[in-house]
């Protein structure tokens, strides 16, 4: 469809230039700046922002070369189409970061716990569809979503109480492997619990698309994605205001900086961690229910790509902040969507490669800070 000659070369050059500039910055800032660390970070940040802008510009050019009249519209439509993906990814990533902050482990089972909730939702929908035939799709899905979220919430509490709390003295890598084990356990258990019948979840609404104008361009968004966006924003606003203004949020921040000291200062770290596992499960389940209509049925591997993307977003935006990963969750689906136009089938690989290059240059992520090691 597209003439993409030169695009591959560009990606390659982009990564190469990134590394070269990093090396140059590292060597020259050492000599000419007094506060070299700060100079290096500022220089890198400017360069990375420029690089990402350049990437978008290149994509735009390729589209423009092929369809000079609709290039902007093409791009905008594609970006808006990613609304559902962005909201799903934002919820999943926030859950992972929350658990990382309180339990100091990267939760590989996040996607599986979410799928567990989605399975329950699908079961509920099956029940509603059989017994309450006059119920509208929207209320049905909303009720099921709440049900699934509560299930995942309870399941999060259960996982924390049974496994995570009892393996506090293990190394971070050990804890990480426990969550990997949990992935296998859930992947095996779910087909046994929920049977082998296909369990669909419908979209939240099948009403006609909503049309709106942005920068003078006509755009459409499906009602399902629109609802998903609203739900995500509401949930995240609630979560962040909780983190900011409630005692629990203060506890989370205290636990994140030092669990032992927080415990000594009277923070009930048990409740904090178990609540964050629960809330992460809840967010994940909502995301899974919103995502399922894309695949029509709930399957065990439903959340796996999202999980990988969420990890990538968390790494790209840095695990140490909440806002960084959110920026990354917008960036990744948008980039993937645009690249799928230009290099179909290879879009994920290219995005991962770009993330890998960025992370190689900035190991703590785009918004992370380097922590000095004590010897």
């Amino acid at each position, binding site marked *: 469809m597209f003439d993409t000659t030169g695009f591959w070369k560009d990606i390659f050059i982009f990564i190469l230039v990134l590394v070269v500039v990093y090396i140059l910055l590292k060597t020259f800032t050492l000599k000419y700046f007094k506060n070299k660390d700060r100079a290096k970070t500022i220089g890198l940040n400017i360069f990375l922002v420029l690089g990402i802008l350049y990437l978008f510009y290149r994509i735009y050019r390729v589209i423009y070369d092929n369809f000079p009249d609709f290039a902007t519209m093409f791009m905008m439509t594609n970006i808006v189409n990613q609304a559902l993906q962005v909201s799903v990814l934002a919820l999943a990533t926030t859950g992972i970061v929350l658990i990382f902050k309180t339990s100091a482990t990267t939760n590989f089972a996040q996607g599986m716990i979410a799928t567990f909730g989605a399975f329950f939702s699908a079961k509920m929908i099956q029940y509603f569809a059989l017994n309450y035939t006059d119920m509208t799709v929207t209320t049905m899905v909303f009720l099921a979503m709440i049900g699934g979220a509560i299930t995942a919430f309870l399941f999060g509490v259960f996982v924390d109480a049974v496994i995570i709390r009892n393996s506090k003295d*293990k190394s971070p890598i050990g804890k990480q492997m426990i969550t990997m084990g949990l992935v296998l356990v859930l*992947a095996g258990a779910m*087909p046994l619990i929920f049977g082998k019948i296909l369990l669909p979840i419908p979209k939240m609404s099948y009403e006609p698309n909503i049309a709106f104008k942005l920068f003078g361009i006509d755009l459409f968004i499906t009602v399902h994605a629109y609802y998903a966006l609203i739900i995500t924003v509401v949930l995240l606003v609630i979560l962040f205001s909780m983190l900011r203004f409630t005692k629990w949020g203060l506890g989370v921040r205290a636990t994140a900086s030092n669990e032992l000291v927080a415990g000594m200062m009277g923070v009930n770290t048990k409740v904090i961690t178990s609540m964050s596992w629960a809330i992460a499960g809840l967010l994940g389940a909502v995301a899974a229910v919103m995502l399922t209509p894309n695949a029509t049925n709930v399957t065990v591997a439903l959340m796996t790509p999202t999980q*990988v993307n969420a*990890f990538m977003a968390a790494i790209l935006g840095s695990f140490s902040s909440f806002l960084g990963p959110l920026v990354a969750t917008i960036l990744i689906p948008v980039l993937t969507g645009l690249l799928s136009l230009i290099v179909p089938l290879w879009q*994920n690989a290219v995005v991962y490669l770009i993330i890998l290059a960025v*992370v190689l240059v900035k*190991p703590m992520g785009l918004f992370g800070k380097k922590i000095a*090691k004590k010897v």
Partner: protein
Amino acid sequence: MMICRTEVCKDRKARFKQITNHPYFGFFIITFLMLIVQLLRVTGVPVSNTLIRAFGITMIYIIIALGFSILLGYAGLASLGTAGFVGIGTYILGYFTKNLEASIFIVILVSILGAIVIGLIVGFISLRIEGMYLAIITLGLSEILNEVFKNAVSITNGTNGLGLDSQLIIFKNLIFINHNTIFIFTAIIMFVMMILTLNLIKSPTGRALLAMRNSTSAAQAMGVSILKYRLMAFIVSTVYAMLGGVIYMSYISFSIPTTWSLAFSLNILAAVIVGGSQSIYGIVLGTFMIFGLNLGVFQQFDFFKENPAISVMFNGLLIILVIMFYPGGLIRLVTTTYYKLKNALAKLKMKWRNYRYGSDN
């Protein structure tokens, strides 16, 4: 006769003990036990195909797990890229035998070279990104490789999977089209890899890796170059994985991208952790628990055939339980129970002696 009770006979006994106490003796026994199934088949005892296949696959997974244990147990680096690397190995063999009719030795050489390149790349990544983040980054790398397997249709035949006639080209005219030969070939390679792994982990290199795992700063103060040893660990583990892939392809003769997913990496991880990541016998035990038991025993029953998920759940449960309660792996449990049994037996013997001969007083 009575004179033999003295020095010469003792010497002979000591020599025999030297053989049994030799560090490679255990590996020989394991390889021999693996081969017994095949030998029984050759001598005419009816052994089911699934059982032989289970043994073959387990041996391949042992090779891969050995490489992974150097990475995880000795260098302390958690990687989830194993599946991708094994996949590359299978496609190298597939491409080279199908299109170029190259000998297996050339394929192995090429895969080792490829492994060195990939190991270098991942090793450099591991220098910048440490600990938990490394697992995520290698997961991303594995995903990239999986996309490549799916989309580079001209080499990998895409999502349909790459099939191959079951054959092993030694030289141009010497071709084995026989599962039995490949089985023996696999067993020999496993034996060699076990020996090499033992040599490596008992050598200064193994000690340096352990020092690095305990504390990077202390290791550096003792002259261990983190750069060199991280790269080395990744290269070695990738070579093992790719070699495993090559043998897998020559034994199974079929490779499909869905095999090389996260689940495969997690299963290898499970095998290494469950058995004990720092002991070769532990890895053999772990691989049998995770793969052998499922393939060889469970698959014989209809219940497990219908619910393949159960074995996955079993693997996950084993990982969690072992990390929580037996951090040294099941092999430590085995050794401790062995010593406990020994002690109990000695006590029982003492009691029996007292009963038979009367107490000393």
